[in-house]
């Protein structure tokens, strides 16, 4: 390799496509699925699932509390909104002194974002039960808990799923930034490719495309989930 030519890292035996840095090289993708893209995709799924899972596990009970004790909604909502205003990279940096350059740091930051998205959505969902519906339920002798479980929660489902869709898609997208901290997730191949004097296009497109595909797939999955769990929302209004 001489000093003047394009500097392409040695990804095994790069073929002409790779060494010429053509727009997209399927061969490279095939060769590096098992050592680069596959693991990165799997890490990304894990990153997202853990962040949304924990975010939901925290947001849901908080939303129930805010719903039950209306005075709590303001402070809880303000706190989570504050988190949202901190740029993600800054939040990673803020956490490093406490949790180090670790997977935990990344997850804490991502959980904070899912929380901000999920909390108001679940609260809004619980509020979406029309007052006359709740009044009828109470008038018929449903207890508070029964009103929550049989009326308010089912009616909150569409809003909860809507919140999950935004949370999942944005976590998948923000999750790529985790590569600034750790060599993990779909952000990492992009990070590496960008690090070349001439960015390696195939790797960027492949990892980026996987992130987009993952987001679309999860989103579609949640739409199907809503369709299955909330059959009444399928009907056209009479």
């Amino acid at each position, binding site marked *: 390799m001489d000093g003047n030519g394009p500097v392409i890292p040695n990804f095994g035996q790069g073929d002409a496509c790779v060494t010429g840095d053509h727009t997209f090289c399927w061969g490279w993708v095939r060769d590096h699925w098992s050592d680069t893209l596959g693991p990165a995709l799997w890490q990304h799924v894990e990153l997202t699932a853990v962040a949304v899972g924990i975010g939901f596990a925290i947001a849901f009970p908080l939303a129930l509390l805010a719903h039950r004790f209306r005075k709590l909604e303001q402070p809880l909502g303000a706190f989570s909104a504050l988190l949202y205003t901190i740029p993600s990279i800054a939040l990673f940096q803020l956490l490093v002194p406490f949790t180090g350059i670790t997977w935990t740091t990344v997850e804490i930051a991502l959980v904070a974002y899912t929380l901000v998205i999920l909390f108001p959505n679940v609260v809004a969902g619980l509020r979406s039960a*029309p007052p*006359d519906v709740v009044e*009828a339920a109470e008038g*018929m*002798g*449903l207890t508070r808990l*029964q009103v929550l479980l049989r009326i308010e929660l089912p*009616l909150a489902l569409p809003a909860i799923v809507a919140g999950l869709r935004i949370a999942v898609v944005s976590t998948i997208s923000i999750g790529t930034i985790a590569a600034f901290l750790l060599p993990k997730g779909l952000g990492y191949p992009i990070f590496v490719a960008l690090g070349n004097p001439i960015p390696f296009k195939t790797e960027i497109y492949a990892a980026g495309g996987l992130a987009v595909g993952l987001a679309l797939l999860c989103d579609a999955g949640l739409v199907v989930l809503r369709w299955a769990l909330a059959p009444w929302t399928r*009907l056209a209004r*009479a």
Partner: protein
Amino acid sequence: MSSAAEIVFDRVTKRYPGRDEAAVDDLSLEIPAGAFCVLVGPSGGGKTTALKMVNRLIPFDSGEIRIDGRDIRTLPLTELRRGIGYVIQQVGLFPHMTVGDNVATVPRLLRWSKRRTSERVIELLELVGLEAADAKRYPSQLSGGQRQRVGLARALAADPPLLLMDEPFGALDPITRHRLQTELRRLHRDVGKTVIFVTHDIDEAIQMGDRIAILREGGVLAQYATPDALLADPVDDFVAQFIGGDRALRRLALRTLDELPLRPGESGPRVAPETTVRNAVSLLLELKADALTVADGDRVLGSFRLADASELL
């Protein structure tokens, strides 16, 4: 056919926090078991408040409400409510449940068997003029009138001895409203429950009620009487004005010819026995006739003259 409950309001007062005027002021009212009692009055007269105190959706400050002699505040809240049918103008059907599941709500709370519940749902849908097949539909697939029918079926599900209805037909078009009014009257005759029915429409009150309680602003009971007594003797100017004009004719509309002592023999054009006295008078004037013959098919019951109408007033 179930039992009906007697309801007594005993000097009940309710004041909302931060308001000087009472919403319901020292209200005393005895509603006999099986009666159809209408609370009527101008908007803000405390009708809704009075109604919701009965199933304790609204707490009151003083006085007592008794159902069959028992102070409602001594009963467990859910037990009290499960024994009272509640119908509101906005209906409040559960949008995520089918019609059948909506109607089955209280039977399920009471842990009826599956079989008994589903049989009851079908029975009720037919009682309120819907079809068994409607049980599988969702509320959003129904018209306004159908929704209110489901609301009524849901309230009747566990055969409660008392039915509370807050302007149930207020949001319906006039034709549907009239049909449902007629059917509710029939239903009341058939199922024999005590009904407390709120409306701001005096004509609806007169058409529906056995007894009418007129509430004026400030939640004060202005008069409590049968429709006939109300039209005959309004206690004061407020009531007279609220009821409106044509009082004599409206009283005549409450009676049908077959309820009257008719004159013997046949005289003049024939009319059916269920003709109201008001319509009979109208016919006499229209046909310039002296008398009408009241006949049930071929059987002549007697005859009716204009003078007989004024005898009733």
